[in-house]
């Protein structure tokens, strides 16, 4: 077992982790960035569409390009990057158990930033274990990264941005989208994305759910039904559709195993995707020395992930004495303002309130140490 030391270990090289690494390294901290994938960028590396928003948020740039730009900056700053690396455990004294390309490392860090992101939600129904049923994110990786179609006729469950965007990308890749099914009475994602789907002639069934997938050894169809105002399937409204693939776009939840293992306190916040590790304005959790940023701290978007990463990077570096108090405050205030700006409008407002709730709960939590 190889023993290593670092000032700040950033776990996850998606938008949040890359941003955190950049900020911490800018101010002189020794930073180690780890990711289990062979390429950095997290969800960015499969995003082929152009981002919108402000210039700071890389408007007009395709997701995977943003990932590349961030990585270049990380490398320029001399951050040690370990890809294809599994952090299998976090032990007392902020010691990480790590396997990197077949070698075993024990890494002692002074600070840890968990930027592990989110994972897709699963939905269970009769037939959901048949080949052909997968997450929408998984389908997106298959088409955008591996250039392989998961199937030819897709039924998309969920009309949030992921469901809408992936449906469109599947069509661009040459598949037919049989329909989108949405449980709520209204479409979940941005109107601009929904319009593209509708223009292509794809039916969007709101107030509908999937009852079961059909098929013997692999799926070849599905049964959907309308939901009443109490979200119960209406008898007699069943409709059979032919499809060879079902994509589940039913939300993400934070990937929090390491935070649980380290003893961080949590609270369930449905608007943010599930149990969230409590944190303060510095993105520090109830375990001193452990910070969170990005989807792990609440499922939002790449832009907020980057800002939270910036915040956590500055705060962790500050705690090691790499910046003065006033310097750090100026930086952190800038990022906090940018986060405020992102959390506005009909979609952002809910998230803003949820995040404020997390900060409030953190005030009443009892801090601890990752110790013996």
């Amino acid at each position, binding site marked *: 077992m190889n023993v290593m030391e670092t000032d700040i270990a950033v776990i996850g090289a998606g938008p949040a982790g890359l941003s955190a690494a950049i900020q911490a390294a800018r101010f002189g901290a020794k930073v180690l960035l780890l990711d289990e994938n062979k390429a950095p960028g997290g969800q960015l590396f499969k995003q082929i569409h152009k981002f919108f928003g402000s210039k700071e948020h890389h408007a007009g740039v395709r997701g995977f390009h943003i990932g590349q730009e961030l990585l270049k900056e990380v490398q320029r700053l001399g951050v040690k990057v370990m890809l294809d690396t599994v952090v299998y*455990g976090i032990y007392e004294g902020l010691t990480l*158990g790590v396997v990197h390309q077949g070698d075993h490392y*024990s890494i002692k860090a002074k600070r840890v930033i968990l930027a592990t992101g989110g994972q897709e939600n699963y939905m269970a129904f009769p037939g959901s274990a048949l080949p052909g049923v997968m997450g929408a994110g998984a389908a997106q990786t298959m088409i955008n990264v591996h250039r392989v179609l998961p199937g030819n006729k897709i039924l998309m469950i969920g009309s949030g941005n992921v469901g809408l965007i992936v449906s469109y990308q599947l069509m661009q890749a040459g598949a037919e989208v049989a329909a989108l099914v949405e449980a709520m009475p209204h479409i979940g994602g941005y109107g601009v994305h929904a319009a593209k789907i509708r223009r292509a002639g794809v039916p969007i069934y709101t107030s509908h759910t999937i009852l079961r997938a059909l098929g013997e050894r692999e799926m070849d169809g599905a049964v959907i039904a309308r939901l009443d105002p109490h979200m119960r399937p209406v008898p007699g409204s069943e409709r059979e559709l032919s499809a060879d693939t079902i994509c589940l776009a039913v939300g993400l939840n934070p990937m929090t195993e390491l935070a649980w293992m380290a003893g961080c306190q949590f609270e369930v916040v449905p608007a943010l995707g599930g149990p969230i590790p409590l944190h303060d304005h510095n993105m520090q959790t109830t375990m001193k020395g452990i910070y969170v940023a990005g989807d792990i701290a609440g499922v939002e978007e790449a832009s907020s992930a980057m800002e939270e990463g910036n915040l956590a990077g500055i705060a962790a570096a500050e705690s090691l004495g790499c910046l003065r108090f006033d310097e750090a405050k100026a930086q952190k205030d800038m990022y906090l303002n940018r986060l405020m700006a992102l959390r506005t409008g009909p979609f952002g407002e809910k998230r803003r309130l949820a995040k404020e709730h997390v900060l409030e709960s953190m005030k009443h939590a009892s801090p601890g140490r990752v110790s013996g």
Partner: protein
Amino acid sequence: MNSVDAVVIGGGVIGCAVAYNLVKAGVSVAIVERDDICAGTSAACDTAIHLQSKNPGIHLQMAQESIKLFPELQKDFDEDIHFKKTGTMIAIQTWEQFEVMRVFAERQRNHGLDVVILDRAAAVERQPMMKGDVVGATYCTADATIHPQFLTKGYFQAAKKYGAKAMLHTKVENIVLKEGHVASVTTNRGNIPCKYVVNACGAYAPCIGKMAGLDIPIAPRRGQIVVTEPMPKFTHTIVNCARYIAAKFRPDLLGTSEADRMGVGLSLTQTERGNLLIGGTREFVGYDTRTTQKALLYILKHATNILPALKDIHIIRTFAGLRPFTPDGLPILGNVPGIEGFVMAAGHEGDGLALSAITGRLIAEIICEKQSAYDFDLTKLSLERYRNIDIKAFEAQYAVCK
């Protein structure tokens, strides 16, 4: 609250086994458990039901009687407990160990356990995966494996079927005595009048004992286990090593390295689904059930030294349990001096699954004041045998019961 004849405190394998036997014998029972069944050690075991690891004498005797009862239990349970005769091989790595194991095996044979000693060639022939650092092995066909949680669930569900009352998420606050008799048990959900209290709380038994004014020398002894991905049949028997036996009974024979001080010794079993459970340690760390990086390394290093093919297998989880340790390695069963109706059923250190069946039987015989069907010398298992122990020193040394 309604009264019952007996309150069994503790919903682990021992408590549920006792409740099952009592209720079948016509004793009305309430199981009072502060959390859920299997909340403690019973869900942190491997699958071994060992005879070969038992000390010749009453320990082995009890295990031999207990193992006979499982097929009958399976017939009375609605769900499969995965009881299977697999046998055990204990790998021997040095000639020094060989001599110690030879003597141990001989004593076991004198007590009716069919154990043979094999040289390396014979051992590897029977156990092709055991190609590592091994000079020989002892081998016994009588040992078995079982599913720890399903066994506990089996006793629990059958006990309820026969009329036992289950009070989960119920914390015992006090044991009320009247003139030297058990009168009732006070809980956070009310008072339960009863004639008998069975303390089946395993590593937590001393806490309950204190409520009745009793000093119980039971301490938590952590064992860490590593779980692999499921795979086809890897070994033909349970596999242990001589160090496992030494760590259990003769830690003085071990060295002073960190791994020795952690009591590292091999215990390898395979579940019905194919996962390998690779143990383990014996550590006095209080009630800490975390797993450590050091133990992970030592357990796996030791295991692969004996079974090299393990190197290509993936691990999916680690866990740890607190064995209830007693100074002489025997459980504390039966009546206690000075309090009528208070019955001990705890302290099975690492043998809880194997001895659950016989423990249930014996406690039922004691409470029903029936002539025992067995000829065990129960004074060897009584709390009374510890009347002269310095309990403060014991508690300080082993970090007991906060």
